[in-house]
């Protein structure tokens, strides 16, 4: 089954492996800052994949996508989060997770295996080596992102979970539908930044009013006169 690959495509598989690893790393990291850092790494790899595939398929479109990814996810989102969130929140260590690290890693592993199994019937339909690599790993990224959205208790790692899901979908998308209209990608990129700003602001407000952003601890309703400043 040794499909002959060009050099950029071979490098794309390398970056695919690293994307999967950074997805696992986001699950395994305790510190909020570390999670954000691995998200930046994953986004940079995603952009690298865009450039490599753009080079392989002579598609200007993919170059543009890579540039958007770098601007939105590698530069803008970490900057926005750092600006919006209080420092105490940004460097915070999340002690209390739903699962401990080894078991959440094992669950993430199960999700990755599930992604591969789910995709394997589709594999017979295409001989394209890029799709064969990107689709399962993208799907695994989506599932692992959804899992960390569920298993995390802090607001910011949950946000990164959403963004990691988006990254996974994007990674599969650049292989399947390279000619998706640019306007759709631009909208997504804007939305992603907006989500980051809104969640960041909400988290900051919650922290100011309640003193914590542990979503897991916010179980009781409190009556209090609304005081919008």
């Amino acid at each position: 089954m040794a499909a002959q690959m060009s050099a950029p495509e071979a490098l794309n598989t390398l970056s695919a492996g690293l994307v999967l690893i950074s997805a696992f790393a986001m699950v395994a990291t305790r510190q909020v800052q570390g999670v954000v850092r691995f998200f930046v790494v994953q986004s940079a790899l995603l952009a690298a994949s865009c450039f490599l595939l753009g080079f392989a398929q002579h598609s200007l479109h993919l170059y543009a996508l890579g540039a958007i990814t770098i601007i939105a996810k590698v530069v803008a989102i970490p900057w926005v989060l750092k600006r919006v969130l209080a420092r105490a929140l940004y460097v915070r260590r999340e002690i209390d997770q739903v699962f401990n690290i080894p078991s959440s890693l094992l669950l993430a592993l199960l999700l990755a295996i599930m992604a591969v199994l789910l995709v394997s019937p589709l594999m017979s339909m295409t001989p394209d080596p890029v799709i064969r690599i990107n689709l399962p790993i993208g799907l695994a990224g989506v599932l692992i992102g959804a899992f960390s959205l569920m298993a995390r208790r802090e607001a910011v790692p949950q946000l990164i979970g959403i963004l990691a899901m988006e990254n996974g979908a994007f990674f599969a998308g650049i292989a399947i539908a390279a000619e998706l209209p640019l306007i759709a990608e631009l909208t997504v990129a804007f939305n992603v930044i907006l989500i980051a700003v809104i969640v960041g602001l909400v988290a900051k407000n919650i922290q100011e009013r309640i003193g914590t952003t542990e979503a897991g601890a916010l179980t009781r309703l409190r009556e209090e006169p609304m005081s919008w400043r």
Partner: protein
Amino acid sequence: MRQAIAFNFIQILFVVGFAPLYSGVLSRLKEIVQSKRGASIFQPYRDLWKLFHKDQVISSETTWIFQFTPYLVFIAPAFVAILIPVLTNYPLVFAFMGDMLAGGFFLGLAGFFAALAAVDTGNPYGPMGASRTRMVGFLAEPVFMIVFFTVSFVAQSTIPYIVQQKWIANPASFFSPAHVLLLIAFLMLILAEGGRIPVDNPTGHFELAMIDESKGLEFSGRDAALMKWGGQMKFLVLACIFLNVLLAPWGLAQGRGLLEVLAAIPLVLIKVLLFAVVLVTIETSLAKLRLFRISEFLGAAFIASVTAMIVSIFFAY
């Protein structure tokens, strides 16, 4: 035939001769990064020389295990060196005597006897270190196994020489996600097995925090030298497996001439030196993990190796 046996001996001599140098280079690099001057890179040789000329004390409470262990610890890595490609690109005489799993078992046997000898002495720190090493060992074992299964699945063989040819022959599989994940899992394994920093501090002299070192506390004189040398050789052998079989299978001797084999020595040394730089970067940028965090570290290695296996099964290249 006779020539191939000679090459095997050159491989063993390479491992035996350069292992202390490698450990010296590693600690010197580390000291430089920490803005100290550090001892000369030849210091481990001087240490060994000094230990060989010292008197030996053996507790009357110990059994034959205590006296037998240093020789086993010294011989096991040298034995593994004839199974793996240290200098040559093609299988030598003994290459088909055992595969990578056999190499792992030999190193495991030496580790087992070292733990027994530590318990044998009755020194309170010995058994503690031995049980900790066993803990790291049994957490590392599944990773070891799955890495080898994945390799054997990808290359259809567990003989290291054939595995190495597989990566050279097919660059697509070299860049495949399975290979990357495998490399990371194996690197974490080397850090754990070699007692390097996120798992154990090789330069630590605080007995309560020791994992690997405390097993050798009771040895003196020649036995201590052999234990030390054996540990350095084990680390060099692991580095050779990682570099020559998995990460960078280039720069080894292709032809059958003696000169070519000798010319491979500096190339392999350069590769190993580059690896030392990477190791020093890892060691100085991380802190030692708490004992019960080691399971998380090796758990992550396990996840990486299992993912590599799954990916390689479903996307055979």
